[in-house]
């Protein structure tokens, strides 16, 4: 499994609950080293073990934790770069939704060996969408929960008001029903192109 995924899990626990809690999780998961590196690969089993121990340590059901991770990815100051990359998806939230099918491709542009599940977006009615996550294989299970966290955070970022509804299936697929109640409900956060030029300001 890509180190970015493992590292995200570690940073989520560290940044949200403190380094002590992370150490407990790492100990309970019997990690050789309590540090994941973003640019190395890890056995999916190890990452799975950490996830399970985090559930126990933090007393949070998996689905809720995965969604928190998605939100964390978009909102924590340490991940500002990632939020910016997501904002390249579109001018407004609807635009952003339409760009979601490109997400795995965009991820691959950035990190060639980062393999995200394919997504399919269908507009079912005005401002109503169905997003299908093709979560084949056990390591992708629960991806829709992470994505739900991402969507909620990005809706805030664009200033849109949305309602999400998660469903399982068919098969290994996971589904998110998205209702955009109000595309420009609030001002949202600013996004300037080129504000983070070619490594200019880190």
């Amino acid at each position, binding site marked *: 499994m890509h180190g970015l995924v493992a590292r995200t899990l570690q940073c989520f626990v560290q940044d949200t609950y403190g380094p002590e809690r992370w150490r407990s999780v790492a100990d309970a998961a019997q990690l050789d080293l309590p540090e994941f*590196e973003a640019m190395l690969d890890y056995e999916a089993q190890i990452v799975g073990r950490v996830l399970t121990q985090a559930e126990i340590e933090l007393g949070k059901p998996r689905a809720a934790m995965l969604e928190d991770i998605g939100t964390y990815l978009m909102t924590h100051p340490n991940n500002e770069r990632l939020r910016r990359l997501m904002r390249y998806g579109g001018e407004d939230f609807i635009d952003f939704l339409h760009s979601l099918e490109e997400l795995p491709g965009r991820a691959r542009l950035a990190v060639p060996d980062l393999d995200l599940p394919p997504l399919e977006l269908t507009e079912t009615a005005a401002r109503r969408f169905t997003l299908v996550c093709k979560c084949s294989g056990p390591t992708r299970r629960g991806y829709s929960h992470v994505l739900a966290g991402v969507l909620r955070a990005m809706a805030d970022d664009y200033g849109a008001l949305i309602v999400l509804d998660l469903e399982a299936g068919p098969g290994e697929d996971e589904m998110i029903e998205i209702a955009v109640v109000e595309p420009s409900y609030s001002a949202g956060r600013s996004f300037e192109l080129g504000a983070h030029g070619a490594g200019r300001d880190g």
Partner: protein
Amino acid sequence: MTPLALPQATLDRLCPMHARLDAMGRVGTIGPTLHRVLGGREYRTRHFSELFDIFRPRQITELAALLALDGRRLQVRLVGQGRETLRGLALPDASGGAVLDLSFGLGLVDAVRDHALTSSDFAATDLAIDMLYLVEAKSAAMEASRTLNRRLQGAMLAAEERAYTDPLTGLRNRRAVSQVLTDLLRRDAAFAVMHVDLDFFKRVNDTLGHGAGDRVLERVAGVMRELTRQEDTVARVGGDEFVIVVVGTGDRTRLAALAAQLITRLEEPIPLRAETALPPARISASIGIALRSPGEPMPRSGADALLEASDAALYDAKRAGRGRYAFFCPEVLRRGRDRRGSSDRREGSGEGSAR
């Protein structure tokens, strides 16, 4: 097919950085993004050469010359706007004029920042925004890579440090000495190798215990550190064997003084921990010294040869009695090879004691 007649707004959306030139080469309308980049400069009816410095493939100031290039890639600067180079393409229109279309090329990132452009300033088909995305994504990925490299570098240095350090005394070890000697030989430097062997150390170990032995070794290390300089190397290369590499000198008098001082200091009684109620430990040391001057021919295994030489001198010093030092000279080595050899003192072997 009917001739193409476009509304201006269509051209604006398709090519937001275009300029239409009339048959005289004067600028008519321009696209909204180019308008923005020109920053409110008056352009209407001005000749294109007053606004656009087309300098590649060659300097172009006339419409005829521009059209003669037949769609070749142009490099263009905006007159009065610095060195920023745009990419351009000029093709004829249907009425004797031309359409000149521009893009930011590799200067895209700077241009977007300088002119505060947004994605609506680019045609939806333009990959410019994707290029910006890629630049940001690449910097982020590169940063993560760098972080990893920095951490690995730190870990490597720490591992190296451990690999070159004697854990008991914190001195360097034999591996470090070989490395240092090899480096010095490669730089053809002047230096001396002092091989120090403790005398009566085994007795300390046997009568006062290994704890006392360790205490003595720590104390010896402290004395050696004290009497040498930062740039010298002090290493523990065996149980009670040490090597000091003194750099930048071939001065026998100074080295003899150092050796004598070292022996004197090491012969001072070493107090052991008060609570053990043991008597202070007493040791001495024998020292063999080999010199190396720049330009001296050296066998390929120069480091080993030098250690061997200092070892031979050490043997010589020991044989002369404990608590002495001796300089290496080739005769010593010859005798060293036959260590049962005679006890005759050769001239210049330079021996002495601290007493």
